[in-house]
């Protein structure tokens, strides 16, 4: 009867016996009922006007309206860089990649992108020119993805090697575009907010805490006592204090310690606190990775004539970091969620924005809509981090890597 393999799998997993079948039916009914309830609420009762009216606030906070073209430019550049990298990844076959131009995953991603670009701007109630901007940006991404996939193989290899450099350059350029200076109007960090501030804080802390963590992990295993004890004190101090305490310390005590004006802006203070906090945990994850590399590896590398730094860089660290990767990414995901604590020190990141929106007398009582939107946004960011980490794991897997 059930000939299709999918039907067979369903039968085997859900309806193997009578008891199994009953439990499955009960659970399916429960899931269906709650889904129905959620859909009924979302489409009939929820007042999404609170999200529509405040969509700019959720996206960029109080970023001045007349300077927002800089953010649009940044988004467009990001889309172009993504398209290029995506296309080239598919075009250039490597040991861990199939070399198929449009694998199934990409087709799903394409459909998802097309759906998001046509649905989200309209659902947010954006004006037609703003909707058109999103369509254009999506079209740009897909066009570059298509052309990079098609002609990427013909590019000279020397040029191809430079492509990954786009990303750090784009990050620096993005920082400059967001904060201004060098001829652009300065936009102080106190006016950054919403998703922009959340992503900025998290990305800064992630990028800065990783090298810090690696250094501290190496320091903790060092044979120089001063270095070792310095690392131990730092790691244990940071791990011994809750993040919110450190954030309060950063916000309130620095003002007393440094004369007025010398203390860095409160947003940057918070960013550095996040960095130092995350760095300590990354250090422990990396130390676990280092400990799992057999001592023989280091000895073998040394006996081949490599210096200690060379042995570390070429032999020990690549293995240690690969092992530490899942724990480190877990730390990064939790850091991204920890940015919500910034709302407690008065920064208007996503949660802070949500709380001030819910205090607007025009939107009082619409808490469920706001929190659900927040949950979806955070889920998307964390899912992206998770996807990236899995791709990196595959890439670093020794069974795939080129000889």
């Amino acid at each position, binding site marked *: 009867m059930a000939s299709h393999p999918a039907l067979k799998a369903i039968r085997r997993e859900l309806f193997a016996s009578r008891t199994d079948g009953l439990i499955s039916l009960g659970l399916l009914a429960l899931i269906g009922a709650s889904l129905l309830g959620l859909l009924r609420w979302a489409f009939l009762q929820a007042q999404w006007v609170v999200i529509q009216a*405040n969509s700019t606030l959720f996206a960029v906070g109080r970023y001045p309206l007349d300077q927002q073209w800089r953010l649009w430019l940044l988004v467009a550049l990001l889309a172009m860089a993504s398209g290029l990298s995506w296309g080239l990844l598919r075009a250039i076959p490597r040991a861990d990649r199939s070399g198929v131009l449009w694998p199934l995953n990409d087709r799903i991603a394409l459909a998802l992108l097309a759906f998001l670009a046509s649905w989200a701007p309209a659902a947010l109630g954006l004006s037609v020119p703003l909707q058109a901007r999103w369509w254009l940006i999506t079209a740009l991404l897909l066009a570059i993805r298509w052309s990079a996939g098609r002609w990427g193989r013909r590019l000279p290899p020397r040029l191809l090697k430079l492509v990954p450099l786009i990303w750090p350059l784009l990050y620096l350029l993005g920082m400059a575009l967001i904060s201004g200076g060098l001829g652009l109007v300065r936009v102080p960090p106190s006016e950054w907010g919403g998703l922009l501030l959340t992503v900025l804080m998290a990305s800064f802390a992630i990028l800065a805490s990783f090298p810090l963590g690696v250094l501290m992990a190496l320091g903790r295993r060092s044979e120089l006592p001063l270095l070792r004890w310095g690392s131990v004190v730092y790691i244990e101090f940071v791990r011994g204090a809750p993040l919110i305490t450190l954030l309060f310390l950063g916000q309130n005590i620095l003002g007393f310690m440094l004369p*007025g004006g010398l203390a860095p802006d409160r947003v940057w203070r918070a960013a550095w606190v996040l960095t130092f906090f995350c760095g300590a945990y990354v250090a422990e994850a990396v130390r676990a990775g280092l400990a799992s590399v057999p001592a023989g590896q280091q000895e073998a590398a040394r006996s081949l004539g490599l210096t200690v730094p060379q042995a570390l860089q070429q032999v020990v660290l690549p293995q240690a970091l690969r092992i530490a990767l899942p724990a480190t990414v877990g730390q990064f995901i939790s850091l991204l969620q920890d940015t919500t604590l910034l709302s407690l020190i008065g920064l208007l990141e996503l949660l802070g924005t949500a709380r001030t929106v819910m205090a607007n007398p025009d939107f009082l009582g619409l808490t469920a809509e706001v929190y659900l939107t927040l949950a979806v946004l955070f889920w998307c960011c964390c899912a992206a981090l998770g996807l990236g980490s899995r791709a990196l794991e595959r890439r670093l897997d020794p069974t795939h890597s080129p000889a």
Partner: protein
Amino acid sequence: MLQLRRLLSASPLLLALVMGGCADEGSGGGGVQSEKMATIRSRGKLVCGVDGKLPGFSFLGPDGTYSGLDADTCRAMAAALFGDPGQVEYRDLNSSERFAALASGEVDMLARNTTKTLSRDSAGGNGISFGPTTFYDGQGMMVPAASGIASLKDLDGKPICVESGTTTELNLADRMREQGIAYTPLKFQTGDQTYAAYLGKRCVAVTSDRSQLAAKRSGFPDPDQHVLLPVVMSKEPLTPASINGDPAWADAIRWTVYALFQAEELGITQANVAEKLAEAKANTNQADLRRFLGVEGDFGKQLGLPADFVVQAVTAVGNYGEIFERNVGRASALKLDRAENRQWTDGGLIYSPPFR
């Protein structure tokens, strides 16, 4: 957390001890010498500490601007200082860090629904300097209109929803014990849970500050079905504040707020202030009005403010009555009565000393 709060509340004291020696130098001479006002001027912006998440008092609108009664106090100060209400940098502060932020100079002033109390005012406590109260709040009680409950006595033996661990909970216990009313407190960790329980009819009444009850009520599905009982169980005079030790700056705040009160008393509004100014300029007999609007005399100079600071403040935000109605009064979603916040001429507590 408790440890942290204790540390933070003690830190202004520490600062006062450390800075005690050098504070005298700046405030000695005659005329107006204010280190704070000099800092604000050279910065070109007033840094104003607000709650930022309190309906009717301070919150962000969809266009990224702050609104509310507290935000308008900041704007009035900026207008008085710079002639431009936009020269404000708002800083959202939570209740545990507000005094530390003030003491460390992170913010120039607080307009953050802060209750004026002895221990916050005194040098041995938080040591901050309060201006005139801009909103007389008090703990109230909300009940369903259909319940027929008209006073605290009617709540005898009934469950009351309250947020746990707040002064609200303690005040409720005190008042009920005084009047010998037995009741069942239903305690919740957060405000959201408390009001959800009330709406779910798990209790017949809910208690909090009256302004917050009104704000929550406006978010209910049917706001008209709930009424505030005419009882006030605590005194919560919400008052702007600045750091102790800079009397000139405290005076500037004090008299700018009084000017908003006085403008209402004199019938000067945002709409007619230009007209009144022209009238004062034309008519030399109106000495009071001329002095108040800065046409004559040197009130501004005495405070270290521009001569027309009253005109600028009223032009920016209107008089006190207009600020109240726009943000928390009948014209707003909160729909609060003026009650204690009426002018003294109407039997309220809003009273400006004479501008002489």
